């Protein structure tokens, strides 16, 4: 199972949990799993939008990026630029 890691202020919404194992094989199913396991995080994800980093590579608004059993996954704010 992949490891989902929560950084900084996100832990407020996960009862202090800094990481958990996830079954998801892609980002779409990961988002569903997060909604189920951490319902307090959902409104923040819905309103603010989040990017997902899988093994260091950042995916923005992409649902079907694969997540492997050994993956390390992070939720981070969306990134843009000027």
């Amino acid at each position: 199972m992949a490891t989902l890691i929560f950084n900084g202020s996100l832990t407020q919404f996960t009862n202090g949990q800094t990481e958990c194992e996830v079954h998801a094989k892609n980002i779409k199913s990961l988002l569903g799993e997060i909604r189920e396991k951490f319902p307090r995080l959902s409104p923040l994800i819905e309103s603010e939008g989040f990017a997902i980093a899988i093994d260091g590579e950042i995916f923005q608004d992409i649902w079907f990026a694969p997540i492997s059993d050994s993956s390390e996954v992070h939720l981070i704010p969306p990134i843009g630029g000027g």
Partner: protein
Amino acid sequence: MNDMTQTNLQKDLKIVGTRPLRPDGADKVTGRALFGADKSLPNMLVGRVLRSPHAHAKIISIDTKAAEALPGVKAVITSKDFQDLPSEFVPAGEMMVNFKDMTRNIMARDKVLYEGHTVAAVAAINDAIAEEAMALIKVEYELLPHVMDVEEAEKPNAPLLHDDMITIGVEPAPKKPSNVAKRVEFGFGDLDKGFKEADLIIEKKFSTQPVHQGYIEPHACLASVSEDGQGELWVTTQGPFVVRNFCSKILGMSTSQIRVTASEIGGGFGGKTVIYLEPLALALSRKACRPVKMVMSRQEVLMASGPTSGAKIWVKIGVKKDGRITAGDAVLKFQAGAFQGSPIGPGAMCAFAPYEMTNVRVVGYDIVVNRPKVAAYRAPGGPISEYAVESVMDEIAQKLNLDPLELRLKNAAKEGTQAPYGPKLGPIGMIETLEAAKAHPHYSAPLGPNQGRGVASGFWFNIGGETCTSININEDGTVGLTLGTPDIGGSRASMAMMAAEELGVPMSTIRPIIGDTSSLGFNFLTGGSRVTFSSGMAVVESVREIIVELRKRAAQLWDVSIEKVEWVSGHARLVGSENPKSLSLRELAEAAGKTGGPIVGGASINATGAGPSLATHIVDVEVDPETGRTTVLRYTAIQDAGKAIHPSYVEGQMQGGAVQGIGWALNEEYVYDDNGKLLNPGFLDYRVPVCSDVPMIDTVIVEVPNPKHPYGVRGVGETPIVPPLAAVSNAVSRATNIRFNELPLSPPRVLAAIESR
């Protein structure tokens, strides 16, 4: 998502990495290029904006009757002409924007929130009548107290800009509204333990001023909405598709009803990722049933279009005697302007990103104030937070008697480093830029009296995103390439070069254009240093697809399977035949009708795998002890580009970013009076650097290839504005032997510090 093999890194490149003339060069130097204000249509009206004279006030009433009755006035609009949209976040530039805020920013509804906030707009047959009409619009205001500074705005008794603003990111959510829109926090490790291990701890407060992107071309557009509701918009923008989407939402039109064409653009730097005039021009045109052109004056640009945030920053860093960082902590308070959405997220994520940290925390606050809503500006947020960290790093180096580059090398992030915002970094060039800086003759050149040398490093993520291109093989074998990302920094040249390299044809046979929103699928905007990376990937994919089609056509003509045909140097060749056969691109194009019709291709991707770009800058300054004036004597910018497709344009980005950063460091600031009125809305008083203010910016391109791009490209446009703030400040601090922690380092501020020493 994309899976592009990096087949070209080791290839003997013929075009990529060279410096051909840009395809748009002749038009630019002869004045033929058409910018935002250059387009006209028959029966065109002039659109003008009536703006708030107050920083914060309730709108009691707006009476437009007299203006509407004036002969020559064809339309007047106010907030009544726009639907009130619910709160809904969408990505724009570096931040999520909220349609409720956007519709209120383009036209004030119940309140004005900054001087220059739009309250009405008119369309008339000429400027004079439009001016007269604006004077006839009667707006009754009830003045409210205003707040300009983040530390004042966060106080419980501060004037409240939005009575429904509950701070996001705090659990449990606050019960009362405030001006603090959002709190973010990143980090890991044990700060207490890290600081206990430190031999030296430096803790400092910093402040930076909001600065404008300073694009030479003001916002301008020409809208034409016909009687059947079909709209055309010609506009200077970084993102025509984004403009189309925003305008259609605000005006209640379908996406297909608005066709947006991006003009040539006279600078954007992030400031043209949002909308101001565009929905107004469309609404006026819809009402008047005539084309409407709108162009901002420089005063309007500075009063009412977004600068980047001003900020208050607190930084604390602990180090061992040998310079190894044991802990880093920071609090950032960013001005959002009148509506939420400062670049606090990326600013906080970048703060310590150049370094390998074991114990780190960054807390950030997005705070609304009575200033224009901020917009993206190169590496949004990064220059501000990294300025503070890099200033403390320099002070640490001085206190420990360490070389500032050695201190950075000792702590440099590298592949596998866990970034302060969580994920592990891929291959990056921090160490390589520091080594290049150390080896550069600039770093060991002697300094004279009152002179100082500063260094600083900088990090920016870079992005990918939705991108779409199309490619057509013309009847004579030349190539049409249509791109959806406006060309701000020479991207047409870079795209043509990659296409030519892949196809094996001269670059001169490729004609790259920027398509309008009806000619391509959605493209995210030009921003985030994404174009050479993302559009480059789409171009390469398009060409590879078309090469397959060309091989198929040749196979048909030779009556062999496609596997028997290879593509070499712009020709289809029969593999392994005793009788060599070859067909040029021209020959295949001429036979296209007989082999299946026009040869066209295209690619649509959501590009991922953008590699961060790191930079290290060196600057020498001389400070006049009698006036406090700082002269930049020498400047060297060193940056990892991954692979420079067109080195001249990479160097141009590095030089431009450095100069804008020098302006931010030394002179640029908004001066408001006690009533929140801007006192310097012009380039005479808002002082951006001009050629005579800066030396030639020397550049060194480092190339640590990004493994996720077929040519190893990283974005380069954002990062070069990150190091200059701290590099210049560190140089001034070393020249004067006074530590500065406020920007800009304008002569009065520097002189006051010298005189109070």
